[in-house]
């Protein structure tokens, strides 16, 4: 196990890594920069740590085995990515995936080509005969609208006249008494009309 040689002489030495990482707290930057300008040991350490840090960051970022992921390819997210329609997490996923997946980079390139081709299609003018035909249709449509408007006007006037001078109708709750009287009259004429048989005590014939 490696042993760390702790330099007790420089309390600032421990800030060197944080300085390299841009992680100093407010107010510490001046202290470190001033100290590095004065201390040869800390300058030497600064350069050594800079090399180590750089070496650590050259470690290749390995690809995760596919079986560990639920769905390893973005698929339809690629088109949405081209159109800028992804949310943050989806965007991060697509970006990180494209970083290592050649197949998806190729698919993205093809989709982009297709999208560009579609968007570069010129806006065409309709042929002349279609223009003439369209004008005729427009004229006929206008004349039909005028006829319909006239019909609607006449109907509205007729309704108004009928409402003012037509027969009055009584409104209100449905009056059941006449219906009941009619029913009673019908029962008195035809006793078989009632579907519920009359009560007959036991032992008596109807």
């Amino acid at each position, binding site marked *: 196990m*490696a042993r760390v040689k702790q330099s007790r002489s420089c309390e600032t030495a421990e800030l060197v890594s944080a300085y390299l990482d841009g992680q100093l707290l407010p107010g510490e930057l001046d202290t470190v920069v001033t100290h590095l300008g004065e201390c040869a040991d800390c300058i030497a350490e600064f350069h050594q740590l800079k090399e*180590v840090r750089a070496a650590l960051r050259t*470690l290749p970022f390995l690809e995760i085995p596919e079986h560990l992921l*639920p*769905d390893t390819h973005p698929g339809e997210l690629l088109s949405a990515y081209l159109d800028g329609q992804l949310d943050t*997490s989806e965007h991060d*996923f697509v970006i990180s995936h494209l970083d290592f997946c050649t197949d998806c980079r190729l698919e993205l390139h093809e989709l982009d080509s297709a999208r560009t081709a579609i968007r570069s299609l010129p806006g065409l003018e309709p042929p002349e005969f279609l223009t003439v035909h369209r004008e005729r249709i427009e004229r006929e449509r206008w004349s039909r609208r005028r006829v319909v408007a006239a019909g609607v006007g006449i109907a509205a006037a007729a309704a108004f006249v009928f409402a003012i001078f037509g027969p009055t109708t009584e409104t209100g709750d449905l009056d059941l008494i006449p219906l009941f009287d009619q029913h009673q009259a019908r029962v008195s004429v035809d006793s078989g009309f009632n579907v519920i048989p009359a009560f007959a005590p036991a032992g008596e014939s109807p």
Partner: protein
Amino acid sequence: MADDRTPTWEDVARVYGRKIYNFAYRLTGNPDDAADLVQEVLLRVRKGLSSYTPGSFDGWLWRITRNAFLDGVRKQKRRPTSPLPEDDRNVLATSPSPDEVLASVRLSEDIQSALLKLPLDFRECVVLCDVVGLTYEEIAEAIESPVGTVRSRIHRGRKMLRELLTWPV
């Protein structure tokens, strides 16, 4: 995750899976252990998402990852027949994927080998900083320690690495 909505575990796997795998690989030096750790982390994330309250997702996730790693180390200590590899050259001989072949360049071997010789506390801070790319504050949240502790461990870890690495500066 930059937004506040709670991600699904599939989101986590897609967005963070590769980072978790690299963190695990650099800490263990072993692709099988790294894969096991990723699976364990994703399992814990899946269980934990139901009780997760939107906030610092990265801190939450890396805390889970780190705890899963430490639990794995404790298990391995109880089973001394499968120790952590001391040198990734043996590991790379059994891992023929293109990325791992790429990782077998001499410098990477030396660095990986040196990383595995660091005490765990220092190793995890150095890997979270230089491999995963977390800030000191994020690391502090992940390991549940003050930023000052993180700063000290990263500095001392790098100094140890400098002494372990054989190439000239």
